[in-house]
């Protein structure tokens, strides 16, 4: 049996070599089907991985509360109307009343030039409570973050983004130097690692973090905040939490039924899932394209196998004469059909992976090997080979051997 399987494989490969062009044409369908399935599986997983990375980089389980009207699109959040009604007390009450909320980070952000020596840089000032470094996963490469105590004491201290440090200080040690913000000298106590642009389009390396109380009293003199990051416990349903939060805030702001919200609540998922919607749409198209390609590939193999059986009647006849049974003939041609399909499948996997590498490189997605799609592809290829080969193989047993041999 081992000898005969070997033999069938050998015959199948010999025939493939003889009829190269024909076989290549017949396996193209499967090649394209598997290629698109594998490439798409890999690339979409890479994209999702990138989104997940973005979410975890931004901070886990976050709800973003913004004063005024903010619209969320796939490209980020855009402010449409401002509001001065969101107060620090609101945030404190939220923390007290909503037990599933673990941390609240009230903040006030604005854009303002920062000056050091002769150099000025337009930066994004972020007045925030000290827990922002934990909640937003902000890591420092130099110095230390400011503390709750710094905040209570309204210390004029700042933690700066990487570009702020890079542009204004070059080779100088920035720690202990004073940055002029709102003409207030502010001591630099820390530098943040390079983070790039976040999902809202904000360049995080151009941010300057200052204790919120310091900012509200000493710099801007306001009694309202621009927003807050609310971090929930693990496993909390964010959508439900958004509803509870909205109800509470409307009550706190004394809004009547017919009045619109003077705040906006959204999550990272709201923004990033719209991108996943896109991926899902493409995935449906890919699956349809794959199915069609598999069908075409199957028809191709079917036609080639019919031709092959017709051409090799002498061979089948002589095999029957020397003692092959019908099932041996069927098995032989099925083996050939499956091998053609598998060659298409394996080549498709390789081409799919090459495409993945190229697209990942261009799109800056992490490389991900969707193993399940690869196994599925091999399985479907074998099934298509069997389905396409069974009828021609049976045709190969339908004639009387002596009629072909005389």
């Amino acid at each position, binding site marked *: 049996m081992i*000898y005969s399987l070997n033999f069938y494989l050998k015959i199948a490969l010999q025939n493939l070599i003889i009829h190269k062009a024909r076989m290549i044409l017949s396996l193209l369908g499967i090649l394209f089907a598997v290629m698109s399935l594998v490439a798409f599986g890999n690339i979409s997983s890479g994209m999702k991985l990138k989104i997940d990375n973005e979410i975890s980089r931004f901070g886990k389980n976050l709800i973003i509360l913004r004063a005024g009207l903010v619209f969320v699109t796939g490209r980020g959040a855009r402010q449409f109307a401002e509001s001065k009604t969101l107060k620090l007390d609101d945030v404190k009450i939220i923390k007290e009343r909503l037990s599933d909320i673990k941390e609240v980070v009230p903040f006030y952000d604005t854009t303002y030039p920062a000056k050091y020596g002769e150099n000025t840089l337009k930066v994004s000032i972020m007045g925030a409570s000290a827990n922002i470094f934990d909640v937003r996963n902000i890591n420092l490469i130099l110095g230390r973050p400011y503390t709750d105590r710094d905040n209570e004491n309204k210390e004029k201290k700042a933690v700066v983004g990487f570009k702020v440090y890079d542009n204004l200080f070059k080779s100088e040690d920035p720690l202990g130097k004073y940055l002029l913000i709102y003409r207030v000298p502010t001591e630099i106590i820390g530098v943040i690692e390079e983070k790039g642009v976040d999902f809202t389009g904000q360049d995080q390396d151009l941010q300057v973090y200052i204790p919120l109380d310091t900012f509200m009293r000493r710099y801007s003199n306001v009694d309202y905040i621009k927003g807050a990051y609310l971090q929930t416990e693990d496993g909390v349903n964010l959508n439900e939490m958004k509803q509870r939060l909205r109800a509470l805030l409307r009550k706190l702001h004394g809004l009547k039924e017919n009045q619109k919200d003077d705040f906006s609540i959204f999550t990272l998922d709201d923004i990033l899932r719209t991108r996943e919607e896109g991926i899902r749409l493409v995935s449906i198209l890919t699956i349809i394209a794959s199915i069609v390609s598999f069908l075409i590939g199957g028809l191709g193999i079917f036609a080639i196998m019919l031709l092959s059986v017709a051409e090799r009647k002498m061979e089948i006849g*002589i095999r029957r*004469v*020397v003692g092959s*049974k019908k099932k041996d003939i069927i098995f032989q041609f099925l083996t050939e059909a499956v091998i053609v399909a598998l060659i298409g499948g394996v080549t498709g996997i390789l081409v799919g992976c090459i495409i993945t590498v190229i697209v990942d490189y261009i799109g800056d997605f992490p490389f991900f090997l969707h193993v399940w799609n690869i196994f599925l592809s091999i399985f479907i290829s074998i099934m298509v080979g069997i389905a396409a080969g069974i009828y021609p193989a049976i045709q190969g047993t339908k004639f009387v051997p002596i009629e072909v*041999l005389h």
Partner: protein
Amino acid sequence: MITLKGIKKSYFIGERELPILKGIDLTIQSGELVILMGVSGSGKTTLMNIIGLLDKQTEGEYFFMDRNVDGLDDETLAVLRNEHIGFVFQQFFLLPYLNAIENVLIPIVYSKKNIKHPREKAKQLLARFGLSDRIHNKPSQLSGGEQQRVAIARALINDPDLILADEPTGALDSKTGNEIMELFRMLNNEGKTIIVVTHDPKLAQFGKRLIRIEDGIISEDTTV
């Protein structure tokens, strides 16, 4: 080894019955070298097909190796052919994409017989027929005589009890044809039972027994 009793065979073309064999009684013993001679249309090929378990008679009984083979199914007949009969054809019927030794080994693929070291045996057979340096050649690289010797090696690989040769010299020049017939004689001397079917009267001299078929019946049966 072979016993035919009242074998009749007819083909039907529409309603019309076309009798080919009209009652053949024949016994062939183990170790014989039989030349089955007849002109085209005499029924000799049909008889060979029946003897070779490739076709079934319409009437009569056939005992192959003391076993009544009437009514056996295709699969059983395939096993019997594989284990007991070696076939040689006018057109050789070698598979074009396999080399000489692979062609010789084809029956092994379907064999349940425990042939030891089939590859070695195939090599030995080919060497014996003077094809040592042709083992890896494809049929297209071999002369007609060489191809027929490969085909005979294929017929022998499974140690058959009977060799059936249908016009084995028909596609060869007379010198090569005679060589092939000498080869059959040699194999017969070693104990193989051989039936050669031919229309060529010149081959009669190679047999030990001559059976002539005319118009579906045996007209002559002489032992030399």
